[in-house]
């Protein structure tokens, strides 16, 4: 499959190697194993249950959003408002808890705010035909602004112990957030792999025109992925604030890029149509292990950013080398560029 000469057919045809599939996952798994072996030799702290729990705790929140960002990217869209949604929904929960409303009501409020974000994004993308990249940069600014307005720019200390326990507590010796993340991954992985909805998300991302002609409703799928994205981002916001014991207006800031990096490293294409939850899990874990390793060897945080950047560029470069084209598809649909495809 790999290395096959591209077919020089009509302009609509292009050959892309199956990078998004099992080959990428295998490569990531090997990278994780290799780093683990090296780190076990380098640091006595690495291969310890406690450290693995550290990694798991660190990637849990990112993982929830990375999970829902996978069908988003596969559908040919992107949601850059996920981090702002985390911040705004967290502030919502905090504000409701300060009013001494019950915890379930606060969580429900946060989730409703998330769905509202998804709703607004979907309206802009589906009804006004705005490219999702642009639409969600816009709504990200708006949501972040509103998050600051909630408590005049101040963070909110969360008084409800049962709420805080959702993020700080453990069950069976494992931090609770890890369970939420696993459930979200299993749920979304199941939908993508085994259901009709999943098949339609892939089809819409692969070729919206082919999907439309086959009777699949592209708007419905787009609505679905944006609502899901808002909902699970809000869930991540709840977990984030419960872990911190406070809600910050800037909660989650900057995480959107980290999340999308993990999804793309996992083999999901910005061009839509390809990718897998398995790949995203491996991408999230790989980035988590790299950050943890750099921590253990004493390299400061900026090096984590540098390593993340290098990994992302390397992963996408291998896509390009194997003949993928980006123009005119997926996230790039409807963006005017000098090299627009005919």
């Amino acid at each position, binding site marked *: *499959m790999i290395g*096959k000469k591209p*077919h020089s*057919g*009509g302009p*609509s*045809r*292009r*050959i*892309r*190697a*199956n990078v*998004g*599939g099992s080959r990428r996952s295998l490569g990531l798994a090997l990278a994780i194993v290799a780093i683990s072996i090296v780190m076990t030799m380098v640091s006595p702290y690495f291969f310890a249950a406690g450290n693995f729990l550290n990694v798991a705790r660190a990637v849990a929140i990112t993982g929830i959003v990375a999970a829902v960002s996978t069908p988003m990217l596969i559908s040919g869209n992107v949601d850059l408002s996920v981090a702002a949604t985390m911040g705004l929904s967290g502030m919502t929960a905090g504000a409701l808890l300060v009013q001494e409303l019950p915890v379930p009501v606060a969580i429900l409020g946060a989730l409703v705010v998330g769905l509202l974000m998804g709703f607004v994004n979907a309206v802009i993308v589906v009804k006004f035909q705005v490219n999702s990249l642009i639409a969600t940069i816009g709504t990200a600014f708006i949501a972040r602004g509103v998050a600051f307005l909630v408590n005049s720019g101040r963070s909110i200390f969360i008084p409800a112990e049962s709420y805080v326990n959702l993020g700080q507590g453990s069950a069976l010796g494992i931090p609770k957030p890890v369970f939420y993340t696993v459930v979200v991954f299993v749920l979304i992985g199941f939908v993508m792999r*085994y*259901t*009709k*909805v999943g*098949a*339609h998300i*892939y*089809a819409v*991302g*692969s*070729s919206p*025109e*082919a*999907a439309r*002609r*086959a*009777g*699949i409703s592209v708007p419905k799928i787009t609505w679905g992925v944006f609502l899901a994205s808002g909902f699970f981002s809000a869930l991540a916001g709840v977990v984030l604030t419960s872990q911190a014991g406070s809600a910050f207006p800037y909660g989650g800031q900057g995480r959107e890029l980290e999340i999308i990096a993990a999804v793309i490293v996992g083999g999901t294409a910005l061009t*839509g*149509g*390809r990718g897998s939850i398995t790949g995203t899990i491996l991408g999230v874990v790989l980035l988590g292990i790299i950050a943890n390793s750099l921590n253990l060897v004493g390299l400061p945080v900026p090096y984590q950013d540098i390593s993340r950047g290098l990994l992302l560029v390397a992963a996408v470069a291998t896509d390009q080398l194997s003949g993928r084209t980006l123009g005119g598809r997926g996230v790039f649909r409807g963006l005017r560029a000098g090299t627009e495809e005919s």
Partner: protein
Amino acid sequence: MSVKKGRVVIEGIGLSKSYGPIIALDNVDIEIRAGEITALVGDNGAGKSTLIKILAGAVIPDAGEVRVNGERVVLRTPADARDLGIETIFQDLALAPDRDVVTNLFLGREVLRKGMAGKFGMLDRGAMEAQALTQIDALGVNIPRSTGVSIGEMSGGQQQSVAVARGAFWAKTGMFMDEPTAALGVRESSRVLQLARQIAQGGVAVVLISHILPHVMELADRVVVLRHGQKVAELTEDISMDRLVTLIVGVDADDAT
């Protein structure tokens, strides 16, 4: 030949369609017969695509009616036509390039599992794979039998073969092919046309739009010529290149030279 006695399965009566001041189709009658290949020829703008789109539910006519198996039908969307067993093969953009043959064959018409699992939208991948492979074998198309190979990794001819195989799989009444070989090489074209013949032999009414007159003459049992939105001829024999060209351009070939 027995196929010549095909019964009329799809009928257009007095079909007209205008786009603003432009008359795309002007009071055209057409009968399409089971087991036959009906070729639709004409110059650019003669109304071929409009006619086929009306019969496939993609365009709603201003006047006239469509009958399928003798009954008047109203086709508002391509899905309406598909429900009546009418499939359309396009030049391109009909397949999801990142998905495999099985997924594409069942695109939008996935088979769900029985019972509760099906209620939750769970796919019956096994059943789809089995049916897809049976279909590929029955048509003898040269496409990778292994599942998991995405369509985008196949040659243009193989891709079009998948599109035709899908059409054949679902077409119970008619299959419309709009310039199915436009993007293909010589060998790949002949393979696709052979498939069209096979499908017609299975009792489906095949309609072929093509600019390539040798293909038309080789394949068609019946040729319908359109010019400026009107039907100017329907031929079943003595289909020569000269005659077709004359009818298409609307002047006597001798006058033109």
